[in-house]
């Protein structure tokens, strides 16, 4: 699944570690999500959406 996590992170000048800390996941998890190697669970997708104050479908795209 494609996502805009890397772009959204960059807009806020956050490192992967910083984003991982805000989401309470490992940096490896953030890296895996950004590169599309791991699809986050629904609870984590909601946490990401809330953190960026956006809708889930604005961040993740299952049709790309």
């Amino acid at each position: 699944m494609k996502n805009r996590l890397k772009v959204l992170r960059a807009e806020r000048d956050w490192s992967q570690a910083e984003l991982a800390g805000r989401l309470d996941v490992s940096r490896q998890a953030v890296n895996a999500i950004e590169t599309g190697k791991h699809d986050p669970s629904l609870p984590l997708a909601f946490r990401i959406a809330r953190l960026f104050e956006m809708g889930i479908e604005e961040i993740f795209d299952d049709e790309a």
Partner: protein
Amino acid sequence: MTTPDQFEEEAEFSHTRYWLHLIGWSVLLTVVLIGGILVGVGLKNLLNGGDTSDILFVVIGTPIVAVSGYFCWRWFPDFTMGEPHTARGNRIRWLLVAVVGVGIATAFPIILSDSEQRATEILFSNGPMPFWPAITAISIWAIAMPFLILFGRRNSDEHGRAAGDFGMMVGFQVFGYAAPIWWMGWRAEVFPQPDVMILFIVTGVISSIATLWKRSS
């Protein structure tokens, strides 16, 4: 607004660096452990008489412990490997320390009893063990492991849990494949008697490799 091109210079997560760090620390801790075992076994035997090989154990083991211990102390604080300092992350790091501690605490009575019997195979010998070292090792393992497993499960993030589940699945399938073949082969007198420790180690190693591969892929 920052565009993706502007942050390409940020140090991205490097699996190579991560695993080199992890392997380096594992090797260093193993060297400390081996040195410590050499010194411990040598000193114990010397106190009970001992011979030239025990003096050699102490002479070789002491500088190994001193040098590797010094590097452990110098490099110690950074176990984070780029991971954020969160309460959950710190709990996971302490879990790793606890796993190593339980491993050493379980192995120590076994190694001591094997060295007393002058067993040629240390730790994974199938020779008889005296009652109290065996009960000590069993108790430490039996009481600590369920807590450590539960603690690890509760404090892993979903990516780590998914990798762990994959590793366990691969490990169990290897066990499910190999164990009946060995058992049937033994009954047909083609193979030696199944050895539970060999199965434990082989499935454990394969499971760990599968977990690490899944985490980094």
